[in-house]
Structures are given as C-alpha cells and as structure tokens.
C-alpha cells in the first residue's frame, strides 16, 4: 500500500472498506476487522480516552513486515492495515484491517493473524485515561496466547486453538 498505516485522524471503517473493495479484481472473500475504543475498561471504570504512542520508524516497519508475512502465508490479493495514534475517544475506531482472497478461509485467517500481531507485537504503547487517572496498559495473556497460535503453526497455514 502506498498509504501510511498510521494516522492521527479519525478512521472510517466503511470508507476504508469501500476503497479496499474497489481496488480488487478477482477476490471472492473480503474480511474486515474494526477495533473500537470501549467506554469502560476491564475494571468497569469509565474511559475518557486512549492515548497511543508510536515509534517513528519501528512501528510502521513492523506492521509492514507483518503484512509481508501475511501475504507470504496466505494467497491474498490485497490487505490493508490502518491504525490510529495519539488521543482516541471511546466509540472511535482505533484499528481497521481488511484482507481479500479467492477463498474465505485465507481472508479470515490473515485478518485474524494481523490483529493478533497488532495486539501483541506492533510497536505501540497504550495509555488508558479514566476518571481514576491514567495508566499504561499492556496486552492481556489471551492476546499473547492468540499470537502464539501462528508461531507454533509452522508448516501449516491454519491456526491452532
């Protein structure tokens, strides 16, 4: 993609999906994932905003490498990642991923893989601001487990559970 994966402006999932689908020639299955900032955190506190810090070189380079890995592992016609940085309000889209392939299984698995990468490996630092204050938050154990499915699945294109 010539377009940067990172943006500090609001993300419209449906606009990105429209543009992504318009560029496709022969895909039969398109999967999209939209991640939305939730209004409450795991402790039930009201979230005022999330702040996402990126690194000026490592973040984008890492995401592009993950896109390259997805394209190497699955027969994708195209894939797209867009991720917010800076301050993000509840209800706003923090991440959008789309994948397109001839058959749906490749599109589902590649989108799933890219989201697992973004959750646990992408170079972002995330600060959650609530009424109780601000706190840096790290991936959940479940997120690390999810990414592990792809690392241990050498020699197969399928996720393990």
């Amino acid at each position: 993609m010539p377009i940067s994966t990172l943006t500090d402006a609001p993300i419209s999932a449906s606009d990105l999906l429209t543009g992504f689908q318009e560029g496709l020639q022969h895909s039969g299955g398109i999967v999209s994932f939209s991640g939305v900032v939730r209004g409450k955190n795991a402790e039930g506190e009201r979230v005022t905003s999330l702040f996402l810090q990126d690194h000026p070189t490592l973040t984008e380079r890492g995401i592009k490498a993950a896109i390259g890995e997805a394209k190497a592992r699955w027969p994708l016609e195209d894939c797209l990642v867009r991720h917010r940085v800076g301050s993000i309000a509840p209800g706003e889209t923090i991440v959008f991923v789309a994948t397109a392939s001839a058959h749906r299984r490749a599109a589902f698995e590649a989108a799933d893989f890219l989201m697992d990468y973004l959750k646990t490996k992408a170079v972002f630092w995330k600060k959650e601001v609530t009424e109780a204050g601000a706190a840096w938050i790290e991936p959940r154990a479940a997120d690390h487990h999810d990414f592990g499915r792809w690392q241990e699945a050498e020699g197969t294109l399928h996720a393990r559970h």
Partner: protein
Amino acid sequence: MAVITYWGKLADVTGRASETYALPEQVKDTSALRAWIDTKTGGDGVFLAPENRIAINDEIVTEPRAVTDGDDIAFLPPVGGG
C-alpha cells in the same frame, strides 16, 4: 554522545522522553548500559528487566550487544496496539 530515548511508561519513570549523554568508558555493552541507566535514573531495577527491550539505531537488538558512544539507544517497554 549517545541519544537515549524512553518510550511508553519508561518516560514516566525517568521524567523525560530523551537524554543525551557521553557514555562512560566502562559502558561497552547493553548489560552495562542497563545497570548504568538504572542507577542514573533511579529506575529501581526497571531498566534491568528484560521485558523492557533495547533498540540501537532503530533496530531492536538481541542482547548482550555492544554499544558505542554515538549510538541512538531506545528503551522499549512491552508493546501492544489495537
């Protein structure tokens, strides 16, 4: 001179995002660097924890690794987006 940057929660530990130092002669590798920075910033061990990784000149490194004055050194706490 080495530019040392602190990312995410590590900038809260040091109170700043970036510092420029002449590295002391005995700081020749990442292990010595971690100990030196931890003492200097009052990190109380946080800079010794392997979960906080080091990037040198925009490459996340496998440690131990040599460091030299003039390197761009970044301390990276655990990452995660989405």
